[in-house]
Each structure stands twice: as structure tokens, then as C-alpha cells.
């Protein structure tokens, strides 16, 4: 009797699982820095096309890349840098061509009130400050190191966070004195962190590509989503959040 | 000190009052002079383990006082409480409680090592004790590998080696089988005799109490119901429990004009003057058993069914049932002559003069 109940539950669960990916669902794997902007884009898209439900899978771009390469059932991939998209394309997982839909720049983030008295990139070599960067393989980490290299600064790093949001949270909490994040991240906190500009000479432009994936369970809806992101409405939402536009 | 206990400068003086919840209060006084053995005899649940724990220092008193050789060990009123490790009381526990992860010799030397005796000296003393009791070759064994008798003797050695001021033995022979028990009873009696201080044996076995003790204190439901020598206890039992132990029949009733009335029976007694609540005692051998209704002088006769027959060597004890359950003692010859088996119906007769009566 009990065995019957358990077996029944397992069958139902299995059936339920299979059902989730059919129908008009689009699974979008998007970089952490796109959290707020893609949430707004998701709402706008769903009200425009109510029969399609968008599911956001947010994470560090390199982690998302590994998921896709391992066969995760994603429909769309929006990465914070081109190299991650290239790796996915090289494996033959990209349908058609990726398109750049946004640009971002980097900024120094410090806790409100700037307790570490940080004025610029040079302060990143100060030992007594607690400095955080994103992990090297995450786009934000890669860009951050490029920026520091251009400014000729050898940073005294205390932690390498797995994604930019984790880094931001620790800066917000005052547990770190400074870190390098995206301009859009500083905007998204709505004043919970202070930003210090990085000069154009040192700064790096981050190009964000988006693509539909070849094994997408719902290719048509995926294409529709990608088109929306590249549309005027999508671009206006991106601009509102501080992204540059190609 | 609370009144009633005599102050000795040696020996144990104790007045113990301990409440264990609503249901049970222990209130006993006892005194044991040096060189004497007292047995605390009672049924299970009477409070014996509470007495052991209180005297050993494992349970504080609620009221009362304990002094040993003039030293106050526990006096709630005076706010004195000496912890167990400072009381110098040697305890042999029921089931011996030998430390399982230590060897026999480590067990025996434990008391000395705890008192900072250097390792080598403690070891030598322990080995000497073991050799003296003939168990030297067991020194490196674990308690798990010992027989009951061996464990008992080692537990006694462990307690005695520290030369305590009082020896407390809790059911020292209860865990042993009948033959071992008889053997070790003699050894134990010797140990006790050789011990200079006061000694207390706690037991539920009357034979143990009778054979080991100079004085027996009977405890029932947390109070002492009789104190006396083994003969006192056996010949003049004061409660049904003690009477059962000693084998006598004890009946409670109300006396009036030569008749004791119990719940179920009238007994004719010789004493016509006594009246009021009484304790009537009938010795098992004074009960006459016959198959037929007797004629003649006995005025207490009735028919009863034999509910149990027990053989004790050259004696046979019969338990009879309603209207008044009694234990009678007859010879094996009489048993077979009368062809009595369990379930047989017999006639009981008791002479009025054989019933001794005491005011309750």
C-alpha cells in the first residue's frame, strides 16, 4: 500500500517535470548584472505576448556557459561578455548568430559614506583595505582585472566572488571597502552603494551578446524574446537601467 | 543533631529524611558503632537505595544529619554537605559497577590513584590485594571477562583498599547464583569481621541479613518498622512483611473477650482481657493439618484448600487459602500419609493457646 503511494508520487512528479518545458515557456539564462533590467523586460514581454511565460535563470556568465555546454535546457543565453558566448557557439549550441544588445562600463563601488576613503583605482593596492573582485573567469572579474592593468595597479585582493551580485552585497553591507562592478549595478542599488567613476582611459567596455540556443525546447518563443530585447521597447528599458546601446 | 540519635564519637550516626516526589518520603534513623555490622533489610521500593545514595554522598538530604566518626557529612540545617569524594566511605554496589574500560588492577588501584598515590605504589598495593584474595592472575583482564563471584570480590577489594571509615554494601550477593552466593557469604563475613569501622549491608534476603549482621533494621515504605537482633526479628516479627520473611503467620484483627475478629474469620485466643486492634502471630508448626474435621479441643478449625507446597529440606510448608491464608509446616511423612497435593482440601486447626497476641 505504502509502496503504491510512493510509486504513484514518483510517477506524478516525473510527469509534472516533463510538462514544465513544453507549452510556451522560455528559459532565459542571463548574467547577474542583467537581474533588474531583464526582470522588467520579462514583465513587458509577457504583457505584450501573454501566451508566453519567461523564466529567468540568473548567474555568473561562465557558470551559465558550463550549464549550457552540459546540456541544460535553456532557450536563450544572454552573456556579460563575448568570450563566454564564443565558447558556446564553438560547441555548436548557438542557433544563427548572436547579437550585441547592450554595452556596460565598469565603476568602482564603495559602501555609502566611503569608509575606506577610496578616491580611485590606485587605492586598490592598499593592503589595509578590504578589496573584492569577481572571480577571474566571470566577465566582471575579467573586465575588472583589465581595468586595473590599464591603470597599472597591482591590487591587494581579499576575496574573489563567484558573481557580481555577491560582490555588490558585501560592499553594500560594508564588509568590503571597495570593488569593481558594472555601472548598471551601482544604479540598480538605488543609492545603497556609492560609485566612483573610472576614467575613460582605464575603463573597458563590456559587450553583452544574446543568442537563441540550438537545442532550445521552445525555439520560436525564444526568437520572439530575443527580438523583443533588440526592439525599441527593449532598448529603452535597457537605457533606463544605465546600459549603453550599440 | 535531631533528637533520637545518640552521639557517638566513632561509628555512623544518621537521621535521613529524603522526599522523592509526592509519593515517597524516606525517614529513618540508624546508628552503627565501629566494629558492628548492621543490615538494612526490606522489600524492593522500600527506600534502601535511597539510604545508600544519601550516606554515600550521591544524594543530599532534605532534612536530618549524617555524622561519621564525629565528622558531619550532611547537615541541611547547618548548611554542611561533604561531597562523596571526600567522605571516605567504601561502597560495594549492586552489580559491582566495575569500570569496563579499565583492567581489573586498574579498577582496584583507582581509589588510590584518585587520592594522588603515585602510580607505582598504587599498582603494587593493588596487586598485593589481588594476590591476597587469590585473583592476582586476573590483574590484566577486563571486567567483562569475569565471573560474578570474581567481580564481587574485586569490587570489595576496590572499596577496601582505600581504607575507608565506613563500609557500605548494597545487595552484595544478589547478582550471584545460589552456590556462589553461599561460598562468598562466608568470605564476605570474614571481610566484614576484619573491618574495624562500622559496616552496613543492604539486602532484601533475610538469610543474608541474619547471617552477616549483628543488628537488623527492617525498612518498609521509607520507615524503619523493626530493629533488633536476628532472633528478635525472627521470633517476634512486627509486621506482615517481617513475619513472611521469618516464616510466621501474622494476622491483624480486633480483639474482644477472647476473640480476635479479622475480615474473614474469628479466632479464639487464650487471652480474654486484651481488646482493641491486635497483631496475632501463629507459628507454622502450631497449625494442625488433617483430612477430616477434628473433634476435640481446638476451637479454631476450618476447611481450606492447599494452594502451594514447598519443600525445605526435612520440612514441608503448605500455603492454604481462604478464609484465612496461612503457612503451615509439616513433615514430609505427614504430607505423604495425608496424600496432600496442591488443590487438596484439608482441615486446619489451631489451639487458642498457640496464638500469641500483641497490641498493635
Amino acid at each position, binding site marked *: 500500500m505504502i509502496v503504491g503511494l510512493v510509486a504513484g508520487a514518483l510517477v506524478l512528479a516525473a510527469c509534472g517535470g516533463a510538462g514544465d518545458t513544453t507549452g510556451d515557456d522560455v528559459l532565459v539564462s542571463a548574467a547577474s548584472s542583467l537581474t533588474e533590467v531583464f526582470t522588467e523586460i520579462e514583465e513587458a514581454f509577457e504583457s505584450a505576448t501573454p501566451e508566453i511565460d519567461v523564466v529567468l535563470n540568473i548567474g*555568473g556568465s*561562465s*557558470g551559465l*556557459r*558550463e550549464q549550457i555546454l552540459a546540456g541544460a535546457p535553456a532557450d536563450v543565453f544572454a552573456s556579460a561578455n563575448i568570450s563566454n558566448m564564443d565558447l558556446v557557439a564553438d560547441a555548436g549550441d548557438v542557433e544563427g548568430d548572436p547579437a550585441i544588445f547592450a554595452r556596460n562600463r565598469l565603476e568602482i563601488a564603495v559602501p555609502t559614506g566611503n569608509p575606506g576613503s577610496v578616491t580611485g583605482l590606485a587605492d586598490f593596492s592598499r593592503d589595509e583595505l*578590504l578589496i*573584492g573582485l569577481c*572571480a*577571474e*573567469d*566571470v566577465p566582471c572579474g575579467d573586465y575588472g582585472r583589465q581595468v586595473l592593468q590599464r591603470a597599472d595597479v597591482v591590487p591587494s*585582493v*581579499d*576575496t*574573489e*566572488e*563567484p558573481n557580481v551580485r*555577491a560582490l555588490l552585497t*558585501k560592499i553594500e*553591507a*560594508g*564588509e568590503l571597502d571597495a570593488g569593481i562592478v558594472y555601472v548598471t549595478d551601482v544604479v540598480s542599488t538605488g543609492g545603497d552603494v556609492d560609485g566612483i567613476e573610472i576614467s575613460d582611459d582605464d575603463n573597458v567596455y563590456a559587450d553583452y551578446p544574446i543568442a537563441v540556443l540550438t537545442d532550445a525546447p521552445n525555439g520560436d518563443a525564444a526568437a520572439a524574446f530575443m527580438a523583443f530585447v533588440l526592439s525599441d521597447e527593449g532598448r529603452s528599458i535597457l537605457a533606463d537601467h544605465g546600459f549603453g546601446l550599440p | 543533631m535531631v533528637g533520637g540519635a545518640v552521639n557517638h564519637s566513632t561509628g555512623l550516626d544518621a537521621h535521613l529524611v529524603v522526599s522523592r516526589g509526592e509519593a515517597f518520603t524516606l525517614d529513618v534513623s540508624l546508628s552503627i558503632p565501629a566494629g558492628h555490622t548492621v543490615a538494612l533489610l526490606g522489600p524492593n521500593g522500600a527506600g534502601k537505595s535511597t539510604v545508600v*545514595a544519601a550516606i*554515600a*554522598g*550521591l544524594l543530599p538530604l532534605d532534612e536530618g544529619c549524617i555524622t561519621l566518626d564525629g565528622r558531619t557529612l550532611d547537615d541541611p540545617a547547618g548548611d554542611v554537605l561533604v*561531597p*562523596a*569524594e*571526600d*567522605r*571516605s*566511605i*567504601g*561502597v560495594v*554496589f549492586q552489580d559491582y*559497577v566495575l*569500570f*569496563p*574500560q579499565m583492567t581489573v588492577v586498574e579498577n582496584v588501584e*583507582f*581509589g588510590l590513584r*584518585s*587520592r594522588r598515590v603515585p602510580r607505582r605504589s598504587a599498582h603494587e598495593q593493588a596487586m598485593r590485594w589481588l594476590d591476597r584474595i587469590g585473583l592476582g592472575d586476573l590483574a590484566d583482564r577486563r571486567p567483562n571477562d569475569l565471573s560474578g563471584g570474581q567481580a564481587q570480590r574485586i569490587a570489595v577489594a*576496590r*572499596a577496601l583498599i*582505600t581504607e575507608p571509615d565506613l563500609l557500605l554494601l548494597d545487595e552484595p550477593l544478589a547478582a550471584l547464583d545460589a552456590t556462589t552466593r553461599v561460598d562468598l557469604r562466608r568470605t564476605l563475613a570474614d571481610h566484614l569481621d576484619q573491618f574495624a569501622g562500622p559496616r552496613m549491608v543492604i539486602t532484601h534476603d533475610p538469610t543474608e541479613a541474619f547471617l552477616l549482621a549483628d543488628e537488623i533494621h527492617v525498612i518498609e515504605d521509607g520507615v524503619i518498622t523493626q530493629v533488633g537482633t536476628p532472633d528478635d526479628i525472627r521470633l517476634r516479627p512486627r509486621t506482615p512483611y517481617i513475619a513472611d520473611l521469618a516464616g510466621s503467620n501474622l494476622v491483624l484483627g480486633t480483639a474482644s473477650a477472647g476473640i480476635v475478629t479479622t475480615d474473614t474469620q474469628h479466632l479464639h485466643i487464650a487471652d480474654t482481657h486484651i481488646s482493641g486492634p491486635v497483631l496475632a502471630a501463629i507459628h507454622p508448626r502450631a497449625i494442625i493439618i488433617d483430612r477430616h474435621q477434628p473433634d476435640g479441643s481446638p476451637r479454631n478449625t476450618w476447611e481450606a484448600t492447599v494452594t502451594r507446597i514447598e519443600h525445605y529440606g526435612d520440612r514441608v510448608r503448605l500455603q492454604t487459602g481462604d478464609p484465612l491464608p496461612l503457612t503451615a509446616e509439616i513433615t514430609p511423612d505427614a504430607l505423604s500419609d495425608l496424600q496432600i497435593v496442591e488443590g487438596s482440601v484439608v482441615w486446619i486447626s489451631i489451639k487458642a493457646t498457640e496464638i500469641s497476641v500483641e497490641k498493635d
Partner: protein
Amino acid sequence: MTKRATSWDRRKRRPPVVLVILAVLGLSVFVIPLLGLLARTPWSDLPTLLTSDVVLDALRVSVVASLGATAISAILGIPLAWVLARVEFPGRAIVRGLVVLPLVLPPVVGGAALLFALGRRGLIGEPLNEMTGLVLPFSMWGVIIAATFVAMPFLVITVEGGLRNLDPRYEGAAATLGAGRWTVLWRVTLPMIGSSLAAGLALTWARALGEFGATITFAGNLQGRTQSLPLAVYVAMESDRGAAVALSLIMVVISLTVLIVLRHRWWGAL
């Protein structure tokens, strides 16, 4: 006559088929992922990977932190277990609940809580920093603290269980023989709960070794300083699969070795 007896005996001894099938399925839950790991191992690159800086640094951090966490758990946990088992005080049930809390709390939540309490701007961390300049996160101490937080409950619970099952008469007997409280604890109580203690230490160490969520949230992630084996695996998964597998293999080998060596005590106490 003889033939019939043996076949009847054999039938009695074979376990029921359904039970065996379920048992094999149960075993596969543990074995199949392990096989997957072994299948992906880059055997030819293994020696270089195993001696690379990333791996050696992570190994050092993990060993130091897990042993440190175990030691702290023992020093603080045994007394706590003793109090919970032996002392009756109001609110004991609540205290016991608090001790078990890290077991049910998601480790990241634990890490966040540690950050809010002991971080630089934390409830206790801030005054601590102002007075002594000490910063706990982003340091080896942070890793040890995070690991202690999640692992100590194991020690407290197994030791408390052991103490409860201990017949108090042994400690009573030791007292009557003249042993003071510390002697009783050291020579009687602790040896008698030896197998519970060993199992508790093994579980604690294993949990401390595998800790990830609290560590990355509280202590951060920096190779050589706070990047333990689990953190290194996580980071490597996104860049260098080969290194990730090598690290995972090390963890499996270490854990299996210790657990197999302790198997007698393990089974005895659990």
C-alpha cells in the same frame, strides 16, 4: 534425506529478492555519481593537476580549517553537551533547539548570519574591530568559524547522546572512591563515551571539510587564504573542468580513507 535438508537451509538463508533490488538501488545513489567522477578524471593530467598551486593551496586551507573547526567543536562542544545532558535548567529545550539549528539552516543563510554578527560592520564584529583591529571575514579564521558553525552541532548531539546513555552509577562509584569532578570526567566519563566521541569527531570533521555555503558567504574566496577544496571546485567548474575533477577526487579519497579507518567506532556508536 540429506539433499532435502541442504536445499531447505539454502532457501532460508537467501535474502528476499525485492529487498536486494531496493538495496542495490539504494547503493547506486552513492556509487553512480562516484563512477561519473571517475569517468571524467583526466588520468594522464592528474599528477600535474594534483601538484598545481590551486590544488595544494586549497588542500592546505581545507585541512587546517577542518581540523581547527573540529578542535574548537570538541573544546566547546563537549562541555556544552555535558551541560545539556546533566544539568536541568529552564529553557533547556530551547537551547537544544538552537544547537540543532545550523543543521537545518541552509549554510548560506548561516554564512550571512555570521557576516551580520561577526563581519566588520557586524553586531559583535564592529566593536571587536574597533577595539582590536581584528577582521574575521576574508581570513583563515573566517573559514574556521564558518566550518565550526555548521559542524559543531554534530559533536554536541553525539556526545550528548553518549552521556545520556551512560549509566550514572559509574560516575557515582568513582566519586565514592575519592575521585574529584575532573578526575571523574577524565578517567571515567570521557573514556566510557569514547565511541560516541569518536563518531562525533569524525562526523564533525567530515562536515567541516565539505562546508561551502557558509564559507563562501562569510570568509570569501581567495586562493591560498580562504579558498578551501569545495570553493576551489566550485570556481574550477566554471573554468577548468580538469582541475575541478582533480579537486573532487582528492576530497573523495581523503573522506573515504578517514571514514573507512574509523569504521569500527562509527558503526558501534551509530
